């Protein structure tokens, strides 16, 4: 059992869960994730680790309440427990001094980006951050990221904050300078669009892929993704991959594998809770 220390809203539908696990906290590195299960009837879901607190032996997990499980997670409060938490999973990102790095975070992907930004900064890189979301109120961690960045940009689809448009619009302008690495984390369509820009320019580009997982330890192949000529398992070979060879279209289909069942689950849950996000916290 894993004790919840904090579970608070960062933005509408986006929450930060701080959960105690001294063993995972000791080992986890940027880019790695955990798999959790709330209770005996729950499903296992992978979530990236946004931060860690060695002094408290705890991890920060930032998640969006989109499906039944994340909604249920959002209703848990301080002092309650998760039944299962396993990690750290996946390969850590390759943190080194590359030079100038553009880090792009879309939506809840910003959470995954945060530990990378800290580590890349510490390794002596020049940090250019681009954060994008639909609208102003959906941003979180933007002050923390701005403080770590040498250049910092915001885009919103509706123009309510920063520049109106997509992260890729900004990326085009920024790639006129010499860029040594791009790391993009966000919706698959966003990462695919980033790749469209950086590939012709031959800029080394990494993406962190969110896939459907079950065990998260390389046993089931639920998370398989085609990278070049090879089939990789995102849970153990990734989640970070070089963008140029990733078959995004296949993965977009694969991520809809259980959309019908997910809708059934969510509907039943909504009926029970009156279609509202948990007001707690």
């Amino acid at each position, binding site marked *: 059992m894993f004790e919840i220390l904090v579970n608070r809203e960062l933005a509408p539908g986006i929450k930060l869960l701080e959960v105690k696990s001294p*063993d*995972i906290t000791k*080992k986890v590195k940027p880019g790695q994730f955990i798999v959790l*299960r709330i209770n005996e*009837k*729950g*499903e*296992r879901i992978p979530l990236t680790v946004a931060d860690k607190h060695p002094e408290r032996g705890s991890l920060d997990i930032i998640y969006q309440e989109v499906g*039944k*499980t994340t909604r249920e997670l959002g209703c848990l409060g301080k002092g309650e427990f998760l*039944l*299962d*938490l*396993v*990690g*750290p*999973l996946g390969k850590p990102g390759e943190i080194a001094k590359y030079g100038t790095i553009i880090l792009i975070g879309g939506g809840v992907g910003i959470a995954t980006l945060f530990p990378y930004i800290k580590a890349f900064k510490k390794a002596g890189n020049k940090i250019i951050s681009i954060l994008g979301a639909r609208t102003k109120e959906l941003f979180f961690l933007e002050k923390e990221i701005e403080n770590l960045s040498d250049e910092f940009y915001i885009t919103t689809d509706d123009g309510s904050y920063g520049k109106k448009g997509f992260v890729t619009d900004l990326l085009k302008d920024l790639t006129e300078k010499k860029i040594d690495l791009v790391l993009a984390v966000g919706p698959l369509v966003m990462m695919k669009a980033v790749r469209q820009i950086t590939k012709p320019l031959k800029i080394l580009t990494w993406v962190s892929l969110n896939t459907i997982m*079950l*065990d998260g*330890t*390389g*046993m*089931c*192949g*639920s998370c*398989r993704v*085609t990278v070049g000529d090879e*089939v990789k398992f995102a849970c*153990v070979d990734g989640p970070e991959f070089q963008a140029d060879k990733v078959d995004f279209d*296949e993965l977009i*289909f*694969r991520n*809809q*594998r*259980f959309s*019908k*069942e*997910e809708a*059934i*689950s969510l509907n*039943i849950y909504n009926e029970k809770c009156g279609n509202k996000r948990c007001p707690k916290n």
Partner: protein
Amino acid sequence: MSKELVRKSMPQRKAKERIGDFQEVNLGYTEEQAILEAKRCLQCKKPLCIKGCPVEIDIPKMIEYIAKGDFIGAIKNAKEKNALPAICGRVCPQETQCEKLCILKHKGQPVAIGNLERFIADWEASHTTNSKEYNNKEQSEPNRGAKGIKIAVIGSGPAGLTCAADLARMGYEVTIFESLSEPGGVLRYGIPPFRLSRGVVDREIEYIKNLGVDIKVNMLIGQIKSLNNLFAEDYKSIFIGTGAGLPRFMNIPGENLNNVYSANEFLTRINLMKAFKFPEYDTPIACGKKVAAIGAGNVAIDSARCALRLGAQEVSIIYRRSEQEMPARDEEILHAKEEGVKLFLLTLPVEYYSDEKGCVKKARCIKMELGEPDGSGRRRPIPIENSDFEMDIDTVVVAIGQSPNPLLLHSTPELKVAKYGNLVVDEESLETGIKGVFAGGDIISGAATVIEAMGAGKRAASSIDNFLAKK
């Protein structure tokens, strides 16, 4: 055939009834049936059956007790060598092991050793589990932790459980580290409840815990702790029993389409996560009406029979060789046929086609013929030219085998790995390249049987004892 040569058949539920749920197919012997079956044993002076048992149960002795009606005596006898008798009695391929060597086989039918083993284990459970006194007195070990030496066992499948049980009985303090949320490994995520009920798995694991073994779940060794971390935590020896968890695919076009599963994924969703109870349980499974399981081992048969129970209308096994070469247990093949699973033999899928939503809708297959025997001794399948045909299917389960789980091996470069991903160990002692680290089960052999893994776990336990005695 004279009366004593007729083997008592295993009572089982009717096919129509059993495909409506995930309850056990076999019902087990009654006391009377068990005694009659036990009386068929010739009590050979030089029993061959024991040689066929990887954990060397004293089978004639066990049967003698049953014939006398002393079921407690029989189970105690079996448990001296086998910590998981209720499991082995259900899932061992007896026809290629103990029963294959039974003298009665030459005259007709061998003694139903597996059925008898199952009977005594279940008898013990139904007559004693409610009695705490019995559990404490009969099942716990007097020398629990007496040696005061800590040993780590990685993986709680058949190899790890057996190794841990033997070491605990020797007086070691054993901790098992399991990466999933519940212990049992393949017994939990792989073998479906209609072959091995979860109550039986729980019961046998409870027995091992009663021996003093501590089981820590959600611990993925290699990621959360390295082998060096474990040594630093004062574990004096380590057993690796991480199994063959890496699913193999055929690498043919369309294999990443939706509704194409590895058997591991399909079975784990159902068995471990209880997707068959969706939406009461949250884990989903999408299983269509026309399902093909690729392969012919127990895992393929299990997948096909699970699909039937999820409501599939047409379920096929597609196998590139003939029925004779099917590696599954005879009983499973028989049960699958009774339940309506169709066999497409001498057939190989070569491509899957997609519908507009990215789901599989069709397979293209080719017909095969058998040539000369290959390295495995089985006749090699050869494609027949221009034999392509198409099959409508909406769900595929790829069950062509699993490779050793690479995760721990990758994170521990000192461990030597052979060509097919198997961990290299000393053949005698099962010690790896790292001193004090032993391994056994599918991680060294590639996917094999529960009982072979248990045999390796036993051997490793004795090697660990020798290793620590020398220190």
